[in-house]
């Protein structure tokens, strides 16, 4: 034990550190470390919250792959033909559509939605209520009036009907028979010529008038004592 201790002591005193280092290593070390820290921070960077979201991203990818496999296996069982088809889009769309579309959408959604002032809205409600009130009252009045008019007309008609019925009932059978006989006689005495003048008879009369001279007319007036005969024009 003693001999071992002696050997170790000799090594320690003869050559304290067997490893060699570059010249001025420790002088340059702080600068070297700082340079490395700086260069590392500029070259490698991660997006904010990268490590917080990493697990979510990885799980999402795993789920997508799993779902892709599920969809494939499911369809393989239903229709292998559909599974063999290319799923790429056959439809075309304008160049840079998605680049310009975002701008269009933002422009479009900015179109202001018309906001109505609360007090204005309240005034509108009151105005509408007043108008509705007027309409309701007016309708009621018209309805009442119409009902009254209808009632009046109905009662008036009823009164007349009752009156006529009562009058008819009061006429005796003999009186009615007399009236009917009288009507019969009048109809029998009326000749066609006196009651109705056919148009051809009127035309004949006009022709006859043309034949009569002025002297004959004047003589007719004198015979019948009609005055101011001279003032009567032949065409009148």
């Amino acid at each position, binding site marked *: 034990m003693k001999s071992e201790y002696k050997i170790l002591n000799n090594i320690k005193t003869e050559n304290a550190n067997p490893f060699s280092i570059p010249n001025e290593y420790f002088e340059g070390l702080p600068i070297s470390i700082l340079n490395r820290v700086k260069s590392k921070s500029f070259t490698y960077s991660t997006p904010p919250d990268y490590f917080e979201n990493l697990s979510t991203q990885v799980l*999402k990818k795993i789920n997508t792959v799993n779902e892709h496999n599920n969809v494939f296996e499911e369809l393989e069982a*239903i229709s292998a*033909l559909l599974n063999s088809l290319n799923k790429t889009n056959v*439809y075309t769309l304008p160049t840079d559509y998605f680049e310009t579309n975002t701008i269009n*959408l933002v422009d479009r959604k900015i179109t202001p939605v018309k906001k109505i002032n609360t007090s204005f809205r309240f005034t509108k409600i009151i105005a509408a209520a007043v108008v509705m009130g007027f309409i309701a009252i007016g309708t009621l009045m018209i309805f009442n009036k119409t009902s009254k008019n209808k009632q009046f007309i109905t009662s008036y008609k009823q009164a007349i009907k009752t009156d006529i019925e009562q009058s008819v009932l009061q006429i005796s059978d003999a009186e009615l028979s007399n009236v009917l006989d009288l009507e019969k006689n009048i109809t029998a005495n009326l000749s066609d010529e006196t009651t109705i003048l056919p148009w051809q008879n009127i035309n004949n009369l006009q022709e006859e008038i043309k034949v009569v001279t002025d002297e004959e007319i004047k003589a007719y007036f004198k015979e019948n004592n009609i005055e101011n005969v001279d003032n009567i024009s032949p065409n009148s």
Partner: protein
Amino acid sequence: MLNLEDKELLVQFKETPHKEKAFTAIIKKYQERLYWHIRRMVVEHEDANDVLQNMFVKVWRGLENFREDSQLYTWLYRIATNESLTFLEQQKRRSSVSIDEEDTGLSNKVKASEGFDANKLEWKLQLAIQKLPAKQRLVFNLRYYDELPYEEMSRILETSEGALKASYHHAAKKIEDFIRNY
């Protein structure tokens, strides 16, 4: 349930100075996926563009009230789906076509598409998809192209997973039959 990136965007959206920047970021993030989802339903680019813009306008108006209990993209997909179905319904009413004729209109649009080639399987597939009823078409597209899990699809379409699986199965069978006999 919201992923961190979307959560951050929503926080920014609620702060007035960052509102537009956050909204632009949301559009940039989801526009392609949503565009293709809509385009496969309405076929023509102009129609897809109209529907996409309308849906994002609705997103702008409703985003502040978005309940963060579901994923943002699930909510966006649901709006895009509803907008597409509304658009197809309006188009059907405007042209007063019967249900049987509806698919003919969309098939004609596919045939009028740039580069259409009736001999290519990819185009036959598109024609076959347009023959499906609108809701079955949605189910097929979401599963086949977007590879969404049934769980997500169930949230978007508000239909049970079982019904979605059955619908996808029927759709795939119908498409295969169409392609084989076309």
